[in-house]
């Protein structure tokens, strides 16, 4: 079978590769991924407007949006609902829950962006996007992805934690251990030569073994 007659199989973005580019209608006008260049972007999809789990997620994400923007991070939502549905839902969230939604939401009725990012999970729903989260760095590279099923609301603390860990990793060339929170000790990358293995013991870190040393993050 040649490539022209092969069925199109949607592929997921891969970590470390450029995020698929798009231009789409949003509640903040027509936006392209390129418009966010220089900022971190958290692109996330939700199954449907006017549903309770998605509403709780939007409220919690809206609460952390100002803190994220201070860190150079922009939120960008997406579902296959129309612009008018998005606008009505956002107004309803403000009216019923007192929460403004400060971030744009893509109206992906033709599923173009959802297909690019592998947000559709046909075994779960043929018509709704799953709860996907993509962390895209200021250079437009996919750095992390999280997928949740339709029935499980996302942990917004974890979303914030992931972007904070990625930013720290970039700034200080360290790794973050399990359950790391800002202020916790970080992992020093393991040495790669025999001389550096020998030197590691006296490097002033919290030393368990040459391949397992931790230190305080720089402030």
């Amino acid at each position, binding site marked *: 079978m040649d490539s022209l007659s092969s069925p199109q199989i949607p592929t997921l973005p891969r970590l470390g590769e450029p995020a698929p580019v798009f231009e789409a*209608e949003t509640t903040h*006008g*027509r*936006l392209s991924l390129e*418009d966010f260049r220089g*900022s971190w972007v958290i692109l996330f999809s939700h199954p449907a407007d006017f549903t309770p789990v998605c509403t709780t997620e939007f409220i919690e994400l809206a609460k952390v949006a100002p803190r994220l923007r201070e860190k150079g991070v922009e939120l960008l939502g997406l579902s296959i609902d129309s612009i008018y549905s998005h606008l009505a839902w956002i107004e309803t969230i403000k009216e019923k829950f007192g929460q403004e939604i400060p971030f744009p939401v893509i109206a992906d009725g033709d599923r173009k962006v959802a297909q690019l990012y592998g947000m559709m999970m046909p075994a779960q729903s043929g018509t709704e996007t799953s709860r996907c989260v993509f962390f895209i760095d200021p250079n437009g590279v996919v750095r992390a992805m999280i997928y949740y099923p339709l029935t499980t609301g996302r942990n917004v603390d974890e979303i914030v934690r992931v972007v904070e860990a990625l930013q720290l990793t970039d700034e200080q060339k360290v790794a973050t251990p399990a359950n790391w929170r800002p202020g916790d000790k970080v992992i020093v990358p393991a040495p790669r030569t025999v001389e550096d293995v020998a030197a590691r013991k006296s490097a002033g870190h919290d030393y368990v073994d040459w391949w397992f040393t931790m230190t305080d993050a720089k402030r």
Partner: protein
Amino acid sequence: MACINPDGTLSEVAKAVLAALRRPHRPEDLAATTGLPLYRIRATLRETGRARLVAERDGVYVLTELGEEALELDAA
């Protein structure tokens, strides 16, 4: 086109951006002047540029004659 409403009027963001562009601006300065996020400024400049309401030279954006007319029509 998102910067122009279906009835032909300018969107609120487009009006703010065009009005600010009566003085030349770089996108970053425009974001500071208008209080809008940089991504909205870039998107609005792209859209109003396609409509020939603004022009860019060496990274600096200015209002065109067509842009001035659009602002005046909108205010009328």
